Structures are given as structure tokens and as C-alpha cells.
């Protein structure tokens, strides 16, 4: 039998967690169930016909629609482009900064500073830099030795993809660098010392010691940023609003928003959002599996 104090404490435990449980039931669980339910209906907000239960028709139609696959492609290109450049750039920069003794904090803070801006502000700055008459063209002309060429940062489909990737890269490179530096500093110095005594040169040391030990950090950062990139919205929205062609940067979230708000097709939009949800769950699960098998201890 439990003592009176234990019972009393258990009541207090419920007292502390109950508000959050009620809140989540209304604002998370009810909506997610509703999202799934809605995705099984043909449901137009403006139509006078009542929503009609159609089983998985929305999903089937999505998989047959070119616009949906274009969104998937746009999201994939953006995600892979952003995250691979961030990964390589962040690793390289973190090693450069980590190898020096002075000004480490200064470099970290300075590289991080674009992350302080909100996404819309970052996109606005770049909108002007990448203007046909702007800084972007003149810098690229100087570097590539062309004169007066317009690289069509928005108008050209491929370039507009690259532009959105550049903005994300610029904004988050400092963030990635700091994450990797944190990972690097968690590797005990004695391991490096042992490698040096065994006669490993700097390159060999990086490839054989640093990278393998950094792998858990890399895996974690990769998955988190993949998920983040797959949900990107603001930059693409601002681009489309200021006249860039929609198709190449019509990422999933933007497409969901348009389907629901512009076309009022709630059912179809919900089906898309459920697909996004399942994809993200898949990634989280993969991360969990990977990080479990990659657990490193320095004992």
C-alpha cells in the first residue's frame, strides 16, 4: 500500500502535467486526426456541395498529378542542395576555425550573425543583391571575367533554385559550423595525441580519427537540417510574390498552402500534408536508428 505522502505527490504530478495534456489534445492530437480524416474527403471550401468521402482518391490523384511530382522534385533539389553544401562548408570551416588558437569565438560569432535575421529579412536582402542591376551580377561578372551579363537569378528556373539555396546556405552556415565545432571539442585531445605519436600526418589524422569520431554529430545535424529544409516556406513564398516563376521553387509547403488557400481544396492539401508528415517520420526514425548504432564513447 502506498503511503499518504506518495499519493499526495502523485496528485501534484498530475496537477503539473494536466494543463499541457489538455492543451495538446485540442491543439495537436485533434488536428492531426482531423488532417487524416480530411485527406479522405473531396472537400472544397467554397463549393456548396457537402464534403464527400472518397477513400484514398486524393492520394491516388496526387501520385498521378504532375504538379505534385514537380513539388517533390523542387523540395528534393532544394533540400539536397542546401544540406550538402552546408554539410561540406560547415565541416571545412569548423576544422579551419578549430585548428587556430586565437579569435575562435570571434569567427564563430561573426559567421553565426546572419542566422540572427529572420528568414524574410534574409530573403529581402538577397532579393536586392540578386536584382538584375544588383551586387550579385557585378560580383559574378568580376569573378568570371564577363562584362555586363545578367545571370537572371530569378527569371531562369535553375538559377532561381540556386538563389534560394544560396540564401539558406548564407543564413545557416555559421550555425552548422558551431555545431561541428561543438562536436570537435568533445573529442578528447589524448586521442589526437596518440595518433600523432603513432606518426599520423594532419590529413591522415582528419580522415582516420576526426571524421569517424565526428560521425554521430554529423548524422544528427544532417537529419535535423534535412527535416528543416523540407519544411522551408518563407523564402520561396517571397520569391514567388516578387515575380519569380513558381514551378522550379514550388516546394511542398508552398504547394500545400496554395492548394488550401488559393484553390480551397482542403482534402487534397491535407493529403499532401499527411505525405509530408509520413516522410518526416521516416527521417526521424532513420536518425534514431543511425544514432543508436553510431554511439561513440570515449572511455
Amino acid at each position, binding site marked *: 500500500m502506498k503511503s499518504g505522502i506518495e499519493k499526495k505527490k502523485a496528485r501534484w504530478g498530475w496537477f503539473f*502535467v494536466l*494543463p499541457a495534456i489538455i492543451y495538446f489534445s485540442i491543439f*495537436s492530437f485533434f488536428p492531426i486526426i482531423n488532417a487524416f480524416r480530411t485527406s479522405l474527403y473531396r472537400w472544397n471550401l467554397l463549393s456548396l456541395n457537402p464534403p464527400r468521402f472518397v477513400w484514398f482518391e486524393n492520394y491516388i490523384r496526387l501520385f498521378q498529378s504532375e504538379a505534385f511530382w514537380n513539388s517533390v522534385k523542387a523540395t528534393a533539389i532544394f533540400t539536397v542542395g542546401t544540406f550538402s553544401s552546408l554539410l561540406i562548408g560547415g565541416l571545412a570551416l569548423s576544422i579551419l576555425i578549430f585548428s587556430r588558437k586565437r579569435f575562435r569565438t570571434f569567427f564563430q560569432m561573426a*559567421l553565426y550573425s546572419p542566422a540572427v535575421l*529572420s528568414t524574410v529579412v534574409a530573403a529581402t*536582402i538577397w532579393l536586392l543583391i540578386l536584382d538584375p542591376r544588383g551586387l550579385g551580377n557585378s560580383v559574378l561578372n568580376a569573378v568570371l571575367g564577363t562584362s555586363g551579363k545578367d545571370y537572371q537569378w530569378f527569371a531562369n528556373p535553375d538559377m532561381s533554385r540556386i538563389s534560394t539555396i544560396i540564401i539558406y546556405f548564407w543564413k545557416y552556415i555559421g550555425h552548422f559550423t558551431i555545431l561541428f565545432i561543438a562536436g570537435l571539442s568533445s573529442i578528447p585531445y589524448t586521442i589526437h595525441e596518440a595518433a600523432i605519436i603513432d606518426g599520423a600526418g594532419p590529413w591522415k589524422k582528419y580522415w582516420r580519427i576526426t571524421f569517424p569520431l565526428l560521425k554521430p554529430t554529423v548524422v544528427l*545535424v544532417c537529419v535535423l537540417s534535412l527535416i528543416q529544409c523540407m519544411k522551408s516556406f518563407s523564402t520561396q513564398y517571397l520569391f514567388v510574390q516578387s515575380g519569380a516563376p513558381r514551378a522550379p521553387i514550388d516546394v511542398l*509547403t508552398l504547394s500545400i498552402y496554395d492548394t488550401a488557400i488559393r484553390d480551397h481544396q482542403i482534402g487534397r492539401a491535407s493529403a499532401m500534408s499527411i505525405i509530408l508528415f509520413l516522410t518526416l517520420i521516416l527521417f526521424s526514425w532513420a536518425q534514431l536508428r543511425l544514432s543508436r548504432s553510431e554511439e561513440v564513447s570515449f572511455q
Partner: protein
Amino acid sequence: MSRADNRLKNTARSLREIVFDLILLVVLAIVLVPLVFMFTASFMESKEVLTMPYRWIPSSFHWENYVQAIQGNDMKYFYARNILNSLIVAITVTLTNCVFAAMTGFGLAKYRFFGKRAVLILVMATMMIPFETIMIPLYMLVNNFGWQDSYMGLIMPFLVNAFGIFMMRQFLLTFPEDLLDAARIDGLNELSIFIRVVIPNSIPAMTALGILTFRSQWDSMLWPLLVTQSEEMKTIPLYITKFTTEKYTNEGALLAAAVIASIPLFVVFFSLAKYFIQGSSVFSGTKG
């Protein structure tokens, strides 16, 4: 090893260091140029912003850009109102998030009760639900409550965040049990223990969580886009988007609006950089 060898090795090393430094400085310049551009161009005439080669120092300072940014093209001062909205929403959400996260986290970390494991799993499951998936049902829910185009509509869906709860629980697991017991012996009940012992000792963790929450609210665009209709209820990101697309917006004023929008975050960044980076680096997976 001979002396000459040593010297050669040292030269090689210092050469490598110089190359590394050069690369770092170039990257740094590339990263900082857009920031400098935003700041300097916000004082320039529209013509000058896009004049190439770019003049890094404005030929004359056009403070009226800032006036135009605040006034808007229609002279109705919507930006001032929208900044106020962003502040109200972000600050409210930050405070409620910190309090509820600490409270729920405390309950989960320090009490034993029936169904605790289920509650923990529930919280973790909530973390997995991306906002983008539930935004349409949430929008319909908020409409049913009659919260459209109101502060309630902007705030309620973000009142409590599962991630914050998880973060505070992890932090409070290591909270010394002796401190709680001492307070119990002194006759405090559990609620006053939470308010007078736990909260004051969790300020660092709550600061990191608070900054993280404030940032994501300040940045939030998708939800305000859904839930607000009138110009009065819009938030900063929506105003800037609209300002970008307006025909009469001059480029300098646009960047002035961007600078104004960035001031609060830069103030927090420079005063609390440690918490700023800490919060974002440990928990970078939450809402962006």
C-alpha cells in the same frame, strides 16, 4: 632530425596557417557583405542602392527611408502596428512556453504517478507532428472558435510546445532532490516549491528556451498568413513581404524596414549570445 628539416617543417606549417587564415577571412567577408549591404543601403536613395559599382558609404544619409518604412506607402503607419503585433505575440508565446514547459517538465522529472510513461510518450509524439501538417485543421478550429484575425488566433496554437517540455524535463532531471525536500520540511506546498525554488534555479535553461521560442515566433510566417486578414493584425514578416511587392516602395526604405525588423534579435544576440547559440544548437530541430 636536422635543424634545416625542422625549419622547413615550420615554414610549411606557417604557410599552411596563412592559407587557412586567408580562406577564413574571405569566407567571413562573403558572409558579412550582405549584412553591411542591408545596413548601408538602408540610408541610400533608391537609385544608389542598385548603382554599380556599389558605394559602401552612402553619398548622403537618407533618414527618410526609415520614416517611409514606418509610414508605409499609404501613410497609414501599419508597420508600427505590425511591429507591435509581432512583439505582443512573440512575448506572450515566449512567456507561456517557458512557464508551461517548466511546469510540465517539473511534473515529469520529479513526481511518480500512474500514467507518467504514457504522458511522456504523448509529449514525444507531439514533437513529431510538424506544424505544416496540422495547420489546415488548426485553421478550421480557430475559425470555429471565432478567433480569426485576432491575437487569440495568432497566439493560441503556440501556447505550449512539446519540445520545450522535453528540454525542461531533461534539465530538471538533474535538479537536486535535497533542495526540494528542504523546502518541503520548511512547509512549502508543491506549487510554491515550483514557483519559489524551481523557477529561480532554472533561469538559464528557461532563457535558452525563451530565446529559441521568441526567434521562431518573430520569424513565423505561414500561420499569420493563414489567420490574419486585416492590415492591422498582420505581423512583421507579412508586412515586409507586402512592402517588397508594392510598386512605390523604394529599395532604401525596404531595407530600412528590414533593419528595424532585425533590431530586437540583434540586441538579444549581443547581450545573451551564449544562450542564443546554446538554445539553437542543442535544439535546432524545432519550428523554423
